[in-house]
């Protein structure tokens, strides 16, 4: 139960309860405006009936040929609204738009290898690890996460255009690439 609506530039004035959380980065205004000026339909907000922001997703469409896909750049839910399936709803919208409007072959996203909660969530939504990207993230500086904290899993879910599921593989966790190799 929440309002699903487009992300607007002025939401930058409202997203503090989401962004003050340690897992969520606040980028420069150009970052948000860049996404909105290119893929506004891949950016949306979940809002409580009171108007308080619950979470948002920011995505883009990219890639050449069979790599053409929707990408989840940031998805986040404020701590007090976790475990309400909000992320799932925002992902479904992003998948729908990536599929029907952009005609992408798959949707992908990056997640810290030690973020087990998120990993489980995405696996539950039919995402699977495609590869492990070394040192994709900076260190959070909060614990001894080691490699798992800095490395990312690139996870993918095929869309209807990839009926043969060519965009995923079962041994993805064993395929390691460096951060330069990914865009």
């Amino acid at each position, binding site marked *: 139960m929440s309002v699903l*609506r487009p992300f607007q530039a002025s939401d930058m*004035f409202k997203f503090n309860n989401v962004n003050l959380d340690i897992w969520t980065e*606040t980028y420069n205004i150009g970052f948000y405006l860049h996404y909105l000026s290119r893929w506004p339909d891949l950016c949306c907000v979940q809002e409580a*009936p009171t108007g308080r922001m619950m979470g948002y997703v920011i995505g883009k469409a990219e890639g050449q040929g069979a790599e053409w896909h929707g990408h989840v750049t940031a998805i986040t839910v404020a701590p007090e609204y976790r475990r309400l399936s909000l992320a799932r709803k925002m992902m479904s919208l992003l998948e729908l738009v990536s599929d029907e409007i952009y005609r992408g072959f798959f949707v992908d996203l990056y997640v810290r290898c030690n973020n087990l909660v998120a990993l489980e969530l995405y696996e539950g939504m039919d995402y699977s690890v495609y590869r492990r990207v070394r040192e994709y993230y900076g260190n959070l500086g909060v614990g001894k996460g080691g490699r798992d904290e800095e490395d990312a899993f690139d996870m993918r879910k095929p869309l209807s255009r990839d009926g043969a599921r060519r965009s995923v593989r079962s041994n993805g966790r064993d395929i390691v690439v460096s951060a330069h190799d990914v865009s």
Partner: protein
Amino acid sequence: MSIALDRQIRPIYDSLDTGANKSAIVGCNKLLKKHPKNALVQALKALALVRSQKVEEALALCDEVLEYKPTDDATLNAMMHVLRGLGRHKDMITMYEAAYKKQPANEELGAQTFFANVRANNWKSAQQVASKMYKQFQEDRYLYWSAISTVLQANDPNTAAEMRTLLYKLALRLITSSPASSHVHPDRFHLHLTILRELREFDEAMALLETPNGQNICQTNLACNEIRRDIMRLRGALEDEGRRAEQRILNKNDRNWLEFLSVVDGTFSHLTVSKPSEDAREQCLSKVSNTLALFTKISVQDGKKDRSGLLGLLELESRSRKHGISTDPTRMVQLLKQYFETFGDKACCYEDLKPYVSLEGGDLAAWTEFLKASPPPLSTTENVKRVINTHKLLRYNLSASELTVEAESSRAVLYIEQYLEGLPLGKDLPVTELQHVDDFAILAASVFVNIWKLNGDIKYLYNAVVLLEFALSQSKQAFQMRLMLIRIYRLLGSPSVALEHYRLLGIKQVQNDTLSHFILSRASTFSLAASGDLTLSTECVESSQIYISNSQETSDFVIRAFSGEKYSQIPQFILFENWLDNSLQRDIVKLEYLRMRITHEVISSEVIDLELIELKFVFDRIHHDNRDLEIIPNYQPRDVESFNAQTMMFEKSEGHGWVWSFLKSYIKAFSQASDLDDVVEEKLLVGDRPQAAGPAKTGTLKERLAIREKEELAELTSDELSLISYADALAEWLEPFHDHVRPPASVVLAEAAKQTELKTGMPLKGVDITPPNGHVKKEEDTPPITEAPEDLVKFFENMKARFETVENAESPNEALHVATLTQEAFLLFVIETLRFKSASVVKIHKLGNLVAKFKPIRAIAAGILKDMAGSLEKMSALEGTSEKRRDFVSACMLPSSQMDDDFQMNIAKKVTDSRKKVEEGVAKGLMRLCSTYEQ
């Protein structure tokens, strides 16, 4: 351009790209020796100069290049950056227009001309350029550019209201003239619908929406669907929309709350008229029972998976009650119970139910009884959440009689007990996670603050900080606790501890605008700038960087949205830019910074001139308040002030009125002290004047400065109000003498031109530098010397008395407030009398008698300030003692098993050390300012 020259220019670009402006200038100079009239090299040099802050030299070069009317890409591009750097958007338009005129077949030049107009918000010309481009290049895109420019012109606050509809009609005509229809492209479709909605052409809009393409777009595009929903509502088709929403909920499993609201709106569509007929009520009743069935079905089907069904039932019942057609008086409480039973273990339960629990009478009693009945043991995280929600919900409805100090105290004890009891549940959580029991601590701290509000006993604030510090040590990412701590530490007069916490929040980028109020609100009270510690004024400068980024970057994205045809975003981006540019917080910080600056820097005519120009710009703004005041948790009962209001320093929030009050005082003082009158300013101004946001403010500057509105003054503390009256009296007294002594514009301009020529070797454009003949002597005689108004001395004496009443208070804030305002009054006196410091001015204008009147005022003020400094010094000596720390610890009533003495002592030390530092620093600053300006 020759290949050789091209090769020589490349390194200059490299230098510019890497920020090596000096070497870029050297490179340009070398080339200019051989090619003195090369426009590109000149433009690049101008760019390097702008970037090295050498504005005067850049201006001269820039003007020269503009005279050539360049058309080549490279020069135009360089010049675009130069002109942007100088804020000369109008010149940019002229430049591109001229180039486009010379090469009308050049599409890129056309687009750049259009963009130049967009950057200057010049919508009318933008529209004309786009229309011309459409005719020339036959691209649909340009037609849409011209249509949205027309819409933006209509929305511009400077456009007359009666023009709006006309402009929208024009925009519609433009779109419909296109051979291609709008619904091939979601953003074109969005624009088309926006225009139809504004013109209330609902039939036409519906025709578009019902095409297969239109339906498809609305399925996947939230922005278009939003407008569609809006149009349905505006045309009164609530019932249709409700039916459609019902289908979506049932068939597509859509759980967007907006769909549920549409169903509810549709249910009550017959009752929207003021006096519905009996028939309508009957119809509505039957629809209510249908919706009831629908939502009940959904809630059963979804169970704990989704809250929409149950919440929909609550909304339905709440509206039924509002319309007086509720059939079952017990249903509301029944639904609340059901909701609580199902979702009571979710953190958002309290917020979900809040709109529905403002109950009275029997309902309230039943609801309270339900909540109070046998709380579950704190053995699972679900139960913890449930108990927390119970407390929050009960607390919301507490009446005044239940809010005694005793009752509140026992609540605090209970919350803390439960906090500690449940804490072990989270012992294995990673440090990045929040503890499940955090809200118990937040509730207890809220209670402590409420008790402090009830009885004024500061020990409750001590308890609040110790508890929150403890809870934060267990839950390191609990930013809500940090925000509460920042507020309370400031109330306690410990600003440096507050700042430490603020920094740990990691505030970045746009958050500086929305959150810096936590630390910068009335920050000059705590500023130690006068004694050389620039921590807070640096904080002001850093938090203001975001406004520079905004003015440099945001318009680029407006342009990108045009290029990418994302029309739905363009009005949003413009709004965002505007709100940030005209942010209230921006200018609150500006004023705080200024108030700190004058305590630190020597007050000189340069400082005064620069600040005056800036403040006058600020004075033309229509502010927008972007401050986030919702972020701070509030669990106070509904009849009690919010936590935010309770913890506001001096119980007053500064808003528009506060800004206007101080702004007027400073502009008055600075414009009297400055030689820059409007004529001079106009001539010397670099760049365009900022566009007034909204209908031009009426009246001359002087008239506008003279107005003091009641509502504005209501935002001031009583001491600030005294300062403002003092400043008015001072300005009124000295105005005639300033006006008499101030040199005429021609003299000031001649001097400015001379200085520029010395610097750049080129004359100042548009200013006649021949100095006026002979000695300019004023025709009029010196105005009669008047006595100083009594209010001036009285102000200082009153402040002295005020200080004596507050210096022994538990928190030093009031004393600091009074002392820093008295210091400010003293500095305003320095500013207002600076002009008469010069012996020759006094002699020429025969002002000896006036100057003689300054002395006793200055002496009294300095004497009082020194006394205050002495008292603050003494206070600070006391703060540093172990006795004070022991007082703090003995005031704490928290269970010592967890929050032991060491822990408490540590916080006591932080609080008292911080107080000591601020008292000492302010005292030192007072002394320094007295010695600087006493004579």
